[in-house]
């Protein structure tokens, strides 16, 4: 976690994303126009969020297995930054939607699902703050975390695919085939996903280390 190379990789990938993402060639699509470049900035936030949520659940399970308080600290901070990325993704999507779909928050299955999903995760933090006892807090919130994740996946990734959504790639089983991207865009999109995810992990790692320092300080 404290090694430098992946942080350097993160910065290099994101600089590449910004420069080539804004200056590179993109397919000419009606309605979307230049906003297709948002794919490099809006979509990777959600990918990063999913990675962080998975990490959060992973450390939640780890805590339940061996009861080390450190795993709980990892879990909560990954969830924290995941929600932060989710809110950023929501805001960027709203702005993008206003200028392409013509509404800040259209009644779209994927948007409604993600609103519910984020609320479920927000109540994770309310649950945490309602316990005094550290061990009880950690154990119950780890269990809740697993349930929240298990609800989030079908809610956001499966249910919108069963109906029609404004989001490309919904209604069917598309993988990346229908994202209106050409191969030139993929050359930026995949590095962007890795870069934004690494940035999320970096911020989480800082928060985790701060939390550990705070705990050690309060123990003295």
């Amino acid at each position, binding site marked *: 976690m*404290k090694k430098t190379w992946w942080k350097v990789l993160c910065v290099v990938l994101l*600089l590449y994303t*910004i420069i080539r993402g*804004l200056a590179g060639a993109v397919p000419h699509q009606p309605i979307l126009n230049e906003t297709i470049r948002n794919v490099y900035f809006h979509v990777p936030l959600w990918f990063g969020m999913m990675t962080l949520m998975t990490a959060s659940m992973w450390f939640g399970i780890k805590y339940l297995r061996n009861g080390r308080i450190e795993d709980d600290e990892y879990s909560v901070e990954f969830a924290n930054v995941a929600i932060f990325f989710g809110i950023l993704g929501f805001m960027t999507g709203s702005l993008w939607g206003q200028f392409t779909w013509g509404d800040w928050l259209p009644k779209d299955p994927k948007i409604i699902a993600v609103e519910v999903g984020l609320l479920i995760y927000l109540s994770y933090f309310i649950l945490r703050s309602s316990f005094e006892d550290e061990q009880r807090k950690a154990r119950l919130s780890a269990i809740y975390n697993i349930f929240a994740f298990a609800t989030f996946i079908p809610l956001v990734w499966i249910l919108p695919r069963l109906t029609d959504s404004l989001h490309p790639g919904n209604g069917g089983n598309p993988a990346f085939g229908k994202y209106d991207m050409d191969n030139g865009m993929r050359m930026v999109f995949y590095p962007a996903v890795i870069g934004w995810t690494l940035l999320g992990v970096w911020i989480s790692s800082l928060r985790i*280390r701060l939390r550990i320092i705070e705990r050690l300080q309060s123990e003295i």
Partner: protein
Amino acid sequence: MKKIISFLVLLFSSFNLFAQEVAMADKMREDGKIWVVIGVITIVFVGIITYLVLLDRKISKIEKGR
């Protein structure tokens, strides 16, 4: 008559030259000035990363201190 026409032609073509000089083909102004935007975003991004790096170092220092 020929002289007057050629004078006028040269005059107008020289106006054209002036107009081109005023436009100044600056690199940062090409392509609808998108490079200025890229510059601004890059500065913001580098600033945020610098902030993260400094925070990272500060935390490392505290960790070593104990």
